C-alpha cells in the first residue's frame, strides 16, 4: 500500500498539471457560450492534446493510460475550474457498453467522436411503467426485414434535446418473462419519428425529457447483444453508471467548511462551535471514505476486474451527503439562507442548486432504496424481494394501469 506517487506517477502528474494550467479555458473564451458549447470546447481541447478519456485505447480516441493514471488525472482535473457535464452518459456508460458488445468497426466509428465531444449520447432506458423496475419497460420493437420498428415512450431522458445518439432498451417479446424479452440497441437521435418534449424539474430547469417513438426504424446492425439478451447488456451499462455517477459533485466539504469559517454564531466563527465541527467531521469522513473506496475500486479495475455492485455506495452516500450539507449550509446562513438571488446569495446560489438538485440525485441511476437492495442482494447475498411477476409472461404481469 502506498498512497504516494511512484517517480513515473509523479512525472505523469506533473505533465498533467502543467498541461491543465496552460490550457484551462479562460473566462473570455467561454463568454457567450452555453453549457453544452463550453463542455464541447473543453472536451475537444483535451482530445486534441491526448487528454480525453485517457483509459481508452488510442485507436478509440484515448491514450491507453492505466487506472492509476486515471486516478491522477481525475485528481488534477478536479482541482481546476473547467466546464463540466453532458458527456457522462456517453463516455461513462454508452462507451463501456459499446466496448463490451459492439463490433470492432462500430467501436472505431463511434468511440472517437465520443472522446472528442463531437457526439453526445443519452440513455433511453426509463419509462413511465419502468423505472426502478426497469425490466418492466413496454416500448416495443418489431422486426421488419433488416430493420426494427420502434413504438412507445421513454421518460426522464437527460440531455435528449442535445444528443446525437442514444442507448436504448426495448421489448421484443412480451410473451416471455420480463427480463427475457428485452433487446438493446443504439440509435441516431435524428431518426424520423422521434419526438422530444422537455420536462420541468423542481429546480425549474429542464434537463430531462419525454421521448416518443412513432415507427422509428433502427438497422439491425445497431443491436448490441442477441435478441432477448438486452437485460444482460443493460447490466453492463448500469454497472458503469454507478462508477460514472460517482458521488455526485455539487457542494463539497471544502465549501461548507469555508463557509463555517466565515459565518459567525454569537459573534464567533461558526467553525468554533462544537456541533458545527461534529457535523463537518462526519461529512469529511464520508467524503474521504468515498474517495478511498473509489481508489480501491480503481485498483480492482487495474487488475482487470469489472466494476461491481459495491460501487453503488458512491451515489448512495454522496447524494444524501450533498443534500444534507446544502441544507446545513442554508441553516448556517440563518435568515438570509433562503435568498437565491445570484447577486446576493453566497457563491451565487450554488448551495441552493445543490439543495434543489440533490433529490434528483437520490432517484437518478437507481434510487437509494434500489441501491440498498443491490448491496444486500448482490454484495451480501441476501434473498431477493418476493416478486409476483417472476416466471410469468410479461403480458400477464399486473400494472398500475390495470
Amino acid at each position, binding site marked *: 500500500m502506498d498512497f504516494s506517487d511512484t517517480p513515473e506517477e509523479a512525472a505523469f502528474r506533473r505533465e498533467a498539471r502543467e498541461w491543465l494550467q496552460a490550457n484551462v479555458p479562460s473566462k473570455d473564451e467561454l463568454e457567450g457560450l452555453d453549457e453544452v458549447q463550453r463542455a464541447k470546447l473543453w472536451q475537444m481541447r483535451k482530445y486534441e492534446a491526448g487528454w480525453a478519456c485517457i483509459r481508452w485505447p488510442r485507436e478509440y480516441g484515448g491514450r491507453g493510460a492505466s487506472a492509476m493514471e486515471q486516478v*491522477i488525472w481525475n485528481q488534477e482535473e478536479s482541482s481546476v475550474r473547467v466546464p463540466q457535464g453532458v458527456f457522462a452518459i456517453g463516455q461513462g456508460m454508452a462507451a463501456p457498453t459499446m466496448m463490451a458488445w459492439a463490433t470492432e468497426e462500430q467501436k472505431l466509428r463511434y468511440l472517437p467522436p465520443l472522446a472528442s465531444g463531437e457526439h453526445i449520447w443519452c440513455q433511453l432506458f426509463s419509462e413511465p411503467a419502468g423505472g426502478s423496475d426497469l425490466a418492466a419497460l413496454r416500448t416495443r420493437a418489431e422486426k421488419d426485414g433488416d430493420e426494427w420498428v420502434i413504438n412507445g415512450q421513454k421518460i426522464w431522458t437527460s440531455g435528449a434535446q442535445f444528443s446525437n445518439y442514444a442507448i436504448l432498451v426495448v421489448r421484443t417479446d412480451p410473451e416471455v418473462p420480463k427480463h427475457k424479452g428485452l433487446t438493446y440497441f443504439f440509435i441516431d437521435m435524428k431518426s424520423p419519428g422521434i419526438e422530444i418534449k422537455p420536462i420541468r424539474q423542481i429546480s425549474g430547469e429542464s434537463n430531462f425529457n419525454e421521448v416518443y417513438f412513432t415507427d422509428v426504424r433502427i438497422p439491425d446492425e445497431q443491436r448490441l447483444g442477441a435478441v432477448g439478451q438486452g437485460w444482460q447488456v443493460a447490466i453492463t451499462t448500469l454497472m458503469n453508471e454507478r462508477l460514472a455517477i460517482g458521488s455526485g459533485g455539487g457542494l463539497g466539504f471544502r465549501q461548507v467548511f469555508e463557509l463555517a469559517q466565515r459565518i459567525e454564531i454569537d459573534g464567533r466563527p461558526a467553525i468554533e462551535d462544537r456541533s458545527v465541527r461534529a457535523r463537518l467531521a462526519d461529512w469529511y469522513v464520508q467524503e474521504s471514505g468515498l474517495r478511498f473506496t473509489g481508489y480501491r475500486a480503481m485498483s480492482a479495475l487495474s487488475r482487470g476486474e469489472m466494476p461491481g455492485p459495491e460501487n453503488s455506495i458512491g451515489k448512495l452516500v454522496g447524494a444524501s451527503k450533498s443534500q444534507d450539507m446544502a441544507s446545513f449550509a442554508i441553516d448556517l446562513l440563518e435568515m438570509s439562507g433562503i435568498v437565491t438571488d445570484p447577486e446576493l446569495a453566497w457563491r451565487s446560489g450554488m448551495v441552493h442548486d445543490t439543495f434543489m438538485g440533490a433529490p434528483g440525485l437520490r432517484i437518478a441511476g437507481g434510487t437509494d432504496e434500489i441501491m440498498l437492495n443491490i448491496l444486500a442482494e448482490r454484495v451480501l447475498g441476501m434473498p431477493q424481494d418476493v416478486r409476483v411477476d417472476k416466471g410469468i409472461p410479461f403480458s400477464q404481469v399486473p400494472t398500475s394501469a390495470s
Partner: protein
Amino acid sequence: MNFEFSEEQNLLREQAAGFLQDQCPPSAVRAILEGAASFDTELFRGIAEMGWTAAAIPEKHGGLGLSYLELCVIAEELGRVVAPVPFSSSVYLATEALLLAGNDAQREAWLPKLASGAAIGTFALAEGTGQPSPNRLETAYENGCLNGTKVPVADGDIADFAVAVARCGRGDGASLYLVPLDADTVTRTTVATLDPTRSHARIDFDNARAESLGAAGEGWGLTRRILDRAAVLFAWEQVGGANAALEQAKEYAMGRYAFGRPIAGFQAIKHKLANIYVKNTLARSNCYYGAWALSTDASELPLAAATARVSAIQAYYFASKENIQTHGGMGFTWEFDCQFHYRRAKLLSVNIGSERTWQDRLISAIEAGQAA
C-alpha cells in the same frame, strides 16, 4: 500509488484469522466475560509466539521490524474475534510510547520483553470523568516519585508498567513517566466496566518511583502523537469487529424464519444490513489511508488518524446495535454472543477519546493544514 495490501500481508491475514479461529472462539471470549480472569493468558501467550507483539518493534530490540501495515492486519483480525487480551495497551500504546519517547536504556529495558510478551505495558491517562487535559491532570511528579490516581486504566491490574501522563508546570503542561506497577507504593484495584472482556483498574500512586519518558513539558504533545498512532490501530480493530457483527447478523437473518421465509428477505432487514455494509466500507477505506499514514509517518497522520477513528467508531457502534436488533429477543439474551460486539464497540469508542473528541481533532487537523 497502490491501494492494496501486499500478497504477504494478505497471507498474514489468513494465517492470523486461522489462528484466532482456533484459539479465540466465542467460548474463549465468554470465559473472560463470565469468569474471574482478567484476560486469556493462553491466547496472549500464543499471540506472542506468533510474533504479533513483536511486529512493529525494531529487530535490535528483539522485534520483527515489520511495517505498521502488518500490525493493522493483525489489529483487524483481533477486533473481529473480540480478543480478550491486553494487546492494544501493550502494543499500540506502551510500545509506541517507548518507541516515540524512550531513551536507549528504557527501550533496552522494556522493548525486548514487550516483544516476547514477557511484559505487559499500558498507558495511564484518564483521571475519572471528563475529557483529560493538561490543566485538569492531578497526577504529579516530584523528587523522582509519582502521586495521584489514574482511573480507568486498561489492563492496569495486570500490566508490569505504565506510561503515565502527569501534570507539569512547564512546556505544554504535561510530562510522561515510566512507572513500574509492582511496587508497594502502587495500589491497583480492578474496576467493573461495560466490557469485562477487557480488564480495567484504578491505580493509586503513593510516592511511586518513576522516571521521565521524553522531555519534561512535552508530555501532552507526545500523548497526542501516541494517540494518533494508536487511533489507526484501534480503528482497524473496530472495523474488524464491525464486519464480524455484520456477518453475525447476516448469518442469523438467513436462518431465522418468520412469515414463512427467512427474515433476510425482508427489506427492513436487507436495508439495515446494507447500511451497516456501507458504513463499514467507508470506515475500512479510511483505515487504509490511516494505515498508510501510520506506516510512513506521513505529515497527514493526524488527519488520517482522526478520519479513520471517527468513521470506525460510528461503523462499529452502528453494526453492533443493529446486529442485536436483527436477532430479535435472542439478541438480548446473555447466552447469545451479540453482546460481545455491543460492549466492545462502546469500549473502543471512548477508550482513547470519544467520537466528539476525535471529530474535533479532525477539524483541528484540517485547520492546521490550512494554516501551514
